[in-house]
């Protein structure tokens, strides 16, 4: 057959895009890549699901007070975790031996509910519920003084990769929060949980677990802990991120910690790109 590909001339027109070393790093069509930070001033903040939302008013209200007090000083993008309802549906779907991609799609409903709850509570302070498709409207929301609130889940859904040795999706709300910060060009993502940060084991179960105030991503991967305070993929991605180089975990149950984190203080645990 004599047919020809009708290509548009560009440095990538005839380069395979699947090379182990992509064109911009290899010798082939070489051009520089100088990425732009889109909205580096935004504070990307995650509200824990099981750790905060499932505690109800007692835990949520003081945190919302701190967030609304800071909202005129900072552009806040609030992302929600899932919690026990997500665990419940994961347990049922796992028992039915359904695929990981389906679990990821099911798991996306709960953080969205939580985001809607926070929107209602923050409505009088400019809380606005947004979907993934509204992400490009963030400049408008901030310009208007709003607090955009969204799910922490990334939109992978049915396209979530199968998990090795289990069915729980690897990309959940921590991953979505990190990836939101990364694409916006934000240096530090803040995770509000019910612990002071990272410990050597689950502090709720092991009273001898000791607190780790800061640690590098590679070092953390090297330690190969059975349990972690954030999803594993996030630590992996941190090690090769271009913009988001710090993850801060703070205890939202301790008054003032969220405010201090928003002001840039190194409270809780900082996991950094090393």
């Amino acid at each position, binding site marked *: 057959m004599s047919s020809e590909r009708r290509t548009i001339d560009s440095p990538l027109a005839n380069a395979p895009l699947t090379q182990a070393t992509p064109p911009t790093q290899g010798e082939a069509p070489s051009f520089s890549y100088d990425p732009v930070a889109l909205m580096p001033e935004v504070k990307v903040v995650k509200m824990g699901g099981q750790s905060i939302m499932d505690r109800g008013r007692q835990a949520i209200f003081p945190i919302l007070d701190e967030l609304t007090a800071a909202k005129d000083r900072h552009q806040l993008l609030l992302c929600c975790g899932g919690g026990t309802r997500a665990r419940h549906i*994961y*347990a049922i779907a796992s028992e039915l031996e359904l695929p990981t991609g389906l679990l990821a799609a099911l798991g996306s409903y709960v953080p969205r509910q939580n985001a809607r709850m926070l929107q209602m509570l923050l409505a009088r302070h400019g809380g606005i519920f947004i979907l993934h498709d509204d992400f490009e409207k963030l400049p408008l929301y901030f310009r208007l003084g709003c607090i955009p609130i969204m799910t922490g889940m990334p939109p992978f859904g049915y396209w979530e990769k199968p998990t090795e040795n289990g069915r729980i999706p690897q990309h959940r709300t921590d991953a979505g929060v990190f990836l939101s910060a990364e694409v916006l060009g934000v240096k530090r993502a803040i995770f509000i949980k019910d612990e002071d940060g990272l410990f050597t084991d689950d502090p709720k179960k092991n009273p001898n677990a000791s607190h780790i105030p800061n640690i590098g991503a590679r070092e953390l991967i090297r330690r190969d802990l059975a349990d972690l305070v954030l999803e594993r993929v996030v630590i992996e991605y941190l090690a090769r991120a271009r913009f988001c180089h710090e993850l801060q975990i703070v205890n939202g149950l301790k008054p003032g910690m969220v405010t201090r984190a928003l002001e840039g203080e190194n409270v809780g645990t900082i996991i950094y790109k090393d």
Partner: protein
Amino acid sequence: MTKRNDLVTGDGRTHIASPLMRESLVDRRTVATTASSHEYRILPDVTLVGLGGHSIFDRGKEVLVPLVDELIEIRKHHKVVLGVGGGTRVRHTVAIALDVGLPTGGIAQLVGAMEEVNAVVLNALLAKHGSVLMYRDHFWELPLYLEGGMLPIVISIPPYHFWEPPPENGPLPAHGSDFGLFMHAEVLGMDRIVFVKDEDGLYDSDPKSNEHARFIPHISLDELLANMPSDLILDRQLFEAWRTARHVRKVQIVNGLRQGELTRALAGEPCGTVIEK
């Protein structure tokens, strides 16, 4: 699940009783409790066919029309879901996006549009034979289309968009249309995928730039993973995902420039390259 409708309190949180209650979903020991050797197949007996964007679509009428004719016949005998890549317009998009310095997630957000354009064209050609363009929100209408004898054309790029993970090397998004179609097949429990490209299949290097490239008619996934060619005809992430996948057994790559190859592949013949898990 032993108990239903049980709310558990006492530690400041309100839990629903379930085996994962209170557990850290990051804990390997917890995750391992959700493992099992079997997995439910949601839509078996369907074959996914992916047409190359750069390799097939960009060649236009001369290649597309015979393939469309083949697909019309194939649909009479097989349940098929069709996808198409983006091709040269994706490359052009990426080249400009890299030049202006968009972040990886920003590039991933852009590229899907060019594939959708190709899917619209394909749908226009096949509409009178019962094709239907399936938008992502219509995911669960797939059984309706397939049982009704239709030929669904799905969006091949996965919905990673702004949330594309940082690539291991370089700034290009790693989750492309081959990977997206693979995941589409895997999550629904399909057994095989046929990719239609402009080469006979897999080579140990790019046959377009290396005339000594060696053709690989048959290979197992393990063999391939142990010795990955530096140039690949499919997305690297496809093989990464396939490693932990449970349903897809066979990925076949056939030459769409040779009339009848796609039909033979659907009939189960070992033409092109067959990769088996």
